[in-house]
């Protein structure tokens, strides 16, 4: 009997948790099929994926074992123990632009509870998603920030502040002697055609606001590379903190240009005053200015040498490719939303038909093998 590897993914109701769970399940099915075909049961490693989230799932994920529970629940260690969880992938964070006690409680204390529970229950590995914005955008930043660089992320931007808290807490945790492997992946701005991230919202504005006379270098990463790197971290043992980003940092104006948008410069003192007003009045900042101005003024490019040499991960998309794809998608969606989804569905169906026919052939083969045995 094949021993299942139990993976618990938190935050499956948000896009990253849900997509990671779906991807892991899909791979599990593929491997199962492969393994049955060649009768190599040892090599196969099917996953039992448990999803956890406070909120209910919007869409069912096939094969997912969903439990609707808050990660701060005190009985979390018992769940981990009883389910014999091998790996925990913690992606359950609340996004808030303003400083919010509620979000802080959920993000920071929630992460502490999850890590503590994993330690108690003897979970072998924990994978977490973070952001390179924890390094902060400062005039004195080196051109490439390594993982060891002090974390000076913005104190005003709620989500970044929480991530800095979590990161400093985790680095304290890493220094303790423990058998649990902790992998933290730090991503820059994520761009994709199916996700809703601050950078996507920023690039969807027309015109796009920039600061007059500033053109910092910026890094991006493609959504599928985010999922891919998380899967690699889950499937392999890669303890440590890694910056994960697409090849090549680009000047901000080039990013905007490649995304098919036109930048509109704002004199920086005015921009800062405006954002101060927005944050004191607690206006809905996500529509007004998606990112802190400092992040559009100073560079915060992360060094991805360790991603290549230690994590052995190579992003599929370069920054330019990501942006060109984004531009194509934006152009299409402007004209006709339905048609593009229809063509997408067509490709998807074709893929499914191909996979299913392959599966059938393999099943037949394995049955014949069994008969001869």
């Amino acid at each position, binding site marked *: 009997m094949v021993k299942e590897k139990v993976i618990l993914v938190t935050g499956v109701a948000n896009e990253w948790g849900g997509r990671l769970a779906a991807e892991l399940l899909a791979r599990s099915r593929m491997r199962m099929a492969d393994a049955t075909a060649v009768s190599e049961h040892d090599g196969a490693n099917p996953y039992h994926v448990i999803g956890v989230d406070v909120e209910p799932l919007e869409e069912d994920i096939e094969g997912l074992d969903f439990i609707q529970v808050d990660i701060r629940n005190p009985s979390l260690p018992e769940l981990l123990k009883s389910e014999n969880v091998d790996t925990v992938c913690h992606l359950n964070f609340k996004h808030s632009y303003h400083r919010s006690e509620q979000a802080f409680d959920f993000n920071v204390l929630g992460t502490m509870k999850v890590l503590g529970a994993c330690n108690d229950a003897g979970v072998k590995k924990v994978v977490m998603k973070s952001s390179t914005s924890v390094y902060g955008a400062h*005039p*004195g*930043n*080196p*051109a*490439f920030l*390594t993982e060891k660089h002090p974390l000076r992320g913005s104190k005003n931007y709620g989500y970044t502040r929480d991530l800095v808290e979590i990161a400093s807490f985790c680095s304290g945790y890493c220094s303790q002697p423990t058998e649990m492997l902790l992998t933290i992946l730090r991503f820059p701005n994520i761009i994709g055609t199916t996700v809703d991230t601050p950078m996507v919202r920023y690039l969807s504005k027309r015109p796009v606001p920039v*600061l*007059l*006379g*500033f*053109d*910092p*270098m910026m890094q991006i990463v493609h959504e599928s590379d985010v999922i891919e790197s998380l899967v690699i971290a889950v499937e392999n043992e890669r303890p440590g903190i890694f910056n994960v980003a697409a090849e*090549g*940092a*680009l*000047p901000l*104006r*080039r*990013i*905007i*240009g*490649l*995304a*098919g948008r*036109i930048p509109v410069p704002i004199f*920086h003192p005015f921009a800062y005053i405006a954002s101060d007003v927005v944050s004191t009045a607690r206006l809905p900042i996500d529509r007004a200015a998606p990112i802190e101005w400092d992040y559009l*003024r*100073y560079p915060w490019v992360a060094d991805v040498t360790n991603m290549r040499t230690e994590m052995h991960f190579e992003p599929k998309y370069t920054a330019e490719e990501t*942006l060109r794809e984004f531009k194509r998608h934006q152009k299409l969606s402007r004209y006709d939303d339905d048609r593009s989804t229809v063509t997408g569905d067509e490709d998807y169906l074709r893929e499914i038909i191909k996979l299913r026919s392959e599966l059938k052939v393999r099943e037949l083969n394995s049955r014949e093998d069994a008969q001869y045995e």
Partner: protein
Amino acid sequence: MNNPDHSVNAGTQDQDPEETMDAGSNVEIEFDTDDSIGREGVANVNPDSQEIDPEDIQRLVNELDGLVERLKATSPGYTPPPYSPQRLIRLLESNIDRFSPEFSSRILEILRSSINEDLIDPDTWKGTWYMLNYYLDYQGDKLKRRLSGEYETDEWGLDPEFLDTIRPIFDFLYKKYWRVATTGMENVPEEGRALLVSNHSGQIPWDGTMIGNAVLNEHINARLVRGLYSNKFPSLPFLSSFLVKVGQTLALEENGIRLLEQEELVLVFPEGMKGISKLFKDRYQLARFGRGGFVRMALKTGAPIIPISVVGAEETYITLRHTPAITKLTGLPFPPISLRWPWFGPLGLVPLPTKWYIDIGAPIPVDQYGPEGAQNLILVSQLTNQVRNVIQKMIYERLTIRQSIFFG
């Protein structure tokens, strides 16, 4: 008054029948406006031109005077026709045979050179139109391309297209304004890493741009110099993005090491802001060489240190006094009081056109110490002093040869 002279002239040449014809036509043209009178005059002269006695001449002169009188009487408002190039040309055309051959050819030459045949040729205008169209197309495409982000940048933000666009300005400053004389370019390696170390001066640090320009223009491989700039610059608008676009980066050890590991030429000014804010009385006295960060960069990467002395730049601004109080009050960088600032307004910020010398010294190898030498504080401070002394000596050598601040 001209008329009698002319008719006499025509009369004397009448022995030759051909010449007579010509003379006749001449007169005809000259009297263009009053045909009947001209013909009459000619008719009077021609029949008895076989032999001329003074009496005849006298008679003719009298007759002509009478004609002139009549002319004046018939058209009192007569004025000679206004000067026009066509008239002049026609006049010259008709009279050209009278001139000596050399003189006529000279006149033809003058006429030819004064009229540019290309301007009359329609192909010239067609060509100009095509060129203009092509140029506008090219610039339009370029603008479109720049706006849609389709240009190259390296990971440090260097934009080669932008660099090419602004190079003429720095070429002008290099060749015409400061007439920079560079020596020792052979000391800059043809390829591979090297750390250039120079003295720093001028309220606005032009010396970095001129060293970069010198290596870009005069080096065999036209290498790009990666300057490391002060941490005061990244928060200033325009300047920060300009510096990044021309391939410079912030002066940090990790940046310098990464650049050297990529086999680049890195330029540092260890004096830093102390060099820029030097008073005029302290010119060419090197300030403290930082904390030896540049030596650690060289030791860690094994890059040779190439000392550079810039003479002339320290006189571009005559700094008299610093004003920390104003900077503190306004929070903006305020240039120190100089001979011309702030008395002459923005004009006081224009650097003086002194004659510059950039001398590149022999490389100082440091790879024999190995990367662990960077941890040895004694070695680092010794090397720092050594480089400082070499540059100071190079400056003094140049100053002893130099005759004049402005003419070298």
